[in-house]
């Protein structure tokens, strides 16, 4: 069975949904056709002196951008419009139970050192993640592969322990980069990948210079710059300054404090997308009073979501609906009834729970997300009207994730989101997983989770994931008031296609591939 998934084909048909989700300011009327040439200079936050080309360790923006978005490639790639296409894999097929996956690899691809790319490279690159002592962030993905087999030089077969319909999506994960077999250590030391740009000079935590390779399989669809120079600028003011003074052409993570100044500059554009990144207030639903669904419902109606978006995110976000699936997900339920701030309903549910008033602690620290303490205080104020008195406990930022999160009955937290529904749910909402921060025990939800994982039929999966989102929104134990946008800025010297990727910042971290000189 030939099987090619289309990430948001359906959403595209309903163009209204797209308009609602992609907040891209595409005001600039006519965009030029892409053309080769020019040097891309970027100022990027999220760089460390310990950065290396080891995809297993990539966790911050600098390496995410330049790992899978510049120097290396994955097997699959999510396009700017959200479609899943082959990157080093040409296409793939699955067995009906979604357990056995056969990938046909691209031929005539070479690494930057001239070594041709083939099946052995894929197998060795995958095995890196499960090697003895390797602490790869992608270990859960790769360890689900039970058998790896090389069928021909350009065809591999992967057998999973349990069916997973999202498997090709998972292969686009930025940790799972393809290295040349037999010289992985050298490739990690020098950055030898198959990407559009090869490393000229890399000083970790300081600067990276790459040049365009000649003759690449993405020619004609990506890779327009002659070179890419990225300077590590972790300090927000220095980064904005570099863009304002024209030292760089693009920066990530715009500092909202000086947003108006950037907007006032005619040579600078701010681009923002709503992705899957969201801020949460998880409650341990096996701890009183959160065991009572009416208490949870009361709390859902006691939060003023729009106010949080306006005041905490300064408008750079979108209200959440108490489920973790974001607009960048394939089966995002955009039609789901929106939870609104309603003190009367909150009071009603409190009565149903047999209470006149409720006093609870909410633990928060700005380590959870920027502005978490303020958000908790807004929550406190809005809940007051519903007879719920929230005591905001300000926790220490250091050690927050080990001492507060997963331990205190109700706290603040953030998730960068996951590319697939199943991945997100099984990271934080499947019973028994280590990061389950709410312990929500709902039989129907857990059953659907397993059903959806092995279901290949796209329509059925949509039903499943929509029902799961509705269930969580109605009864789940996590308040998800808002999605935080990715807000980046560029000089008008640069331009890009009609869509902007919303999986990560900087056009899905692929600005170096997709953008060009205006």
């Amino acid at each position, binding site marked *: 069975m030939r099987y090619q998934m289309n990430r948001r084909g359906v959403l595209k048909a309903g163009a209204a949904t797209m308009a609602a989700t992609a907040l891209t300011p595409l005001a600039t009327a006519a965009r030029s056709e892409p053309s080769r040439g020019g040097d891309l200079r970027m*100022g990027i936050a999220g760089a*460390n*002196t*310990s950065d*290396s080309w*080891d995809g*297993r*360790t990539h966790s911050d923006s600098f390496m995410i951008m330049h790992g899978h978005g510049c120097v290396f490639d994955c097997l699959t790639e999510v396009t700017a419009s959200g479609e899943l296409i082959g990157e080093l894999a040409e296409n793939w097929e699955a067995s009906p139970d979604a357990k056995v996956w056969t990938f046909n690899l691209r031929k005539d691809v070479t690494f930057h050192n001239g070594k041709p790319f083939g099946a052995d490279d894929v197998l060795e690159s995958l095995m890196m993640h499960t*090697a*003895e*002592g*390797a*602490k*790869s*962030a992608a270990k859960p993905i790769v360890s689900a592969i039970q058998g790896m087999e090389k069928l021909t030089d350009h065809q591999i077969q992967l057998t999973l322990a349990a069916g997973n319909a999202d498997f090709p999506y998972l292969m686009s994960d930025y940790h799972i980069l393809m290295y040349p077999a037999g010289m992985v*250590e050298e490739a*990690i030391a020098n950055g030898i990948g198959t990407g559009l740009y090869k490393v000229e*000079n890399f*000083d970790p*935590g*300081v*600067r990276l210079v790459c040049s365009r390779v000649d003759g690449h399989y993405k020619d004609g669809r990506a890779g327009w710059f002659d070179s890419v120079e990225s*300077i*590590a*600028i*972790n*300090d927000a*003011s*220095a980064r904005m*300054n*570099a863009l*304002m*003074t024209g*030292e*760089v052409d693009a920066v990530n993570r715009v500092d909202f404090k000086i947003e108006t100044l950037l907007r006032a500059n005619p040579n600078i554009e701010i681009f923002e997308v709503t992705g899957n990144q969201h801020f949460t207030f998880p409650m341990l639903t096996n701890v009183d009073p959160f065991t009572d669904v009416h208490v949870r419902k009361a709390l859902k109606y006691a939060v003023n979501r729009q106010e949080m978006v306006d005041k905490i995110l300064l408008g750079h976000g979108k209200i959440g609906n108490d489920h973790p699936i974001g607009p960048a997900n394939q089966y995002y339920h955009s039609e789901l009834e929106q939870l609104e701030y309603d003190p009367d309903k909150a009071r009603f549910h409190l009565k149903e729970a047999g209470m006149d008033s409720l006093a609870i602690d909410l633990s928060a620290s700005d380590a959870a997300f920027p502005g978490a303490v303020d958000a908790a205080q807004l929550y406190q104020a809005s809940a007051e009207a519903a007879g719920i008195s929230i005591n905001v406990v300000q926790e*220490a930022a*250091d*050690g927050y*994730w*080990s001492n507060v*999160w997963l331990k205190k009955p109700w706290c603040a*937290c*953030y998730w960068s989101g996951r590319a697939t529904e199943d991945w997100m749910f099984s990271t934080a909402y499947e019973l028994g997983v*280590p*990061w389950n921060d709410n312990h929500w025990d709902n039989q129907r939800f857990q059953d659907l989770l397993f059903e959806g994982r092995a279901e290949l039929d796209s329509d059925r999966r949509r039903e499943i994931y929509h029902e799961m989102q509705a269930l969580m929104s109605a009864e789940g134990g996590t308040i998800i008031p808002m999605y935080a946008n990715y807000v980046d800025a560029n000089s008008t010297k640069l331009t890009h296609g009609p869509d902007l990727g919303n999986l990560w910042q900087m056009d899905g971290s692929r600005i170096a591939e997709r953008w060009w000189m205006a």
Partner: protein
Amino acid sequence: MHSVLFIVIRRLGLGVLTLFAVSVMIFLSVNMLPGDFAEAILGQGATPEAIAAIREDLGLNKPAVTRYFDWLFGVLTGDFGTSFAQANFSAFAGEATGKGGIGSVAAQLEPRFMNTLFLAMVSALISVPLSLTLGILAALFRNSAYDRAVNIGTLSSISSPEFFLAYVLILFLAVLTPIFPSLSNIYADMSMADRLERTMLPALTLTLVVTAHMMRMTRAAIINLLASPYIEMARLKGISPFRVIVVHALPNALAPIINVIALNLAYLVTGVVVVEVVFVYPGIGQLFVDSVKIRDIPVVQACCLIFAAAYILLNLMADVLSIISNPRLRHPK
């Protein structure tokens, strides 16, 4: 001359003791910071198992005293250790990083320290002649409008925080009149001219910070001498005021001036942290900030030792030079 040698040796010995005390203090204070490397690097992923695994790998679960002496013996044998970040990532990759290899603190510090020295040198080359000139002229025209203007100017620049001065300079010299680049991202294969151009704004910022101290000391030391009888004699002979100051007063005022210059040179090496962050200058200060953030104790320790050593050596140099410039100290009775 023997007494000078003796002083140098004694001061060096004291310096080593000071370094030792500094290292104990740094170790204690970094350990007192809440959270450790494992927690800092894992963030949300800080599950107890992951934290325990990283602590085990890096030896963070050993008692602090053991860790301190392990580190101290390493330093005494010239091995500053491996930065936690590097050690952790080689543990990820499953490869070994040897002594003095790519991941060693020494290898990581060296290029950064060279950059910092370069910045300090450029700043010193600008600020020392500038403040001496300003100081001498201020002594010459003391209590004039010029004297007051220089005093007010330098005092206000030393009173402003460095980052503020940095942004003022960026505003005037990079944004409004784009003479210099606002980013000072220098790197190894840059030509000297480019390097100087890129270093200019941070160097000017540092100059503004250190000029006041040196200039005022020059002025005060000279004015102090102007009341002495031999200066009066010189003036009575009809020598021009400029010559009186430069030829007769200045040599005798050198000792305190040299002292202040050395102190400020030490500041140029150690006080660059904020300036380097603002201008994205890849020096030791920036590395220091990054390392404190992730509690990378070996790097923090090494940076602090370098800072302390710079202070001690430059102070020693100041003392030696002031002894040499003063015959009375050169030949003690």
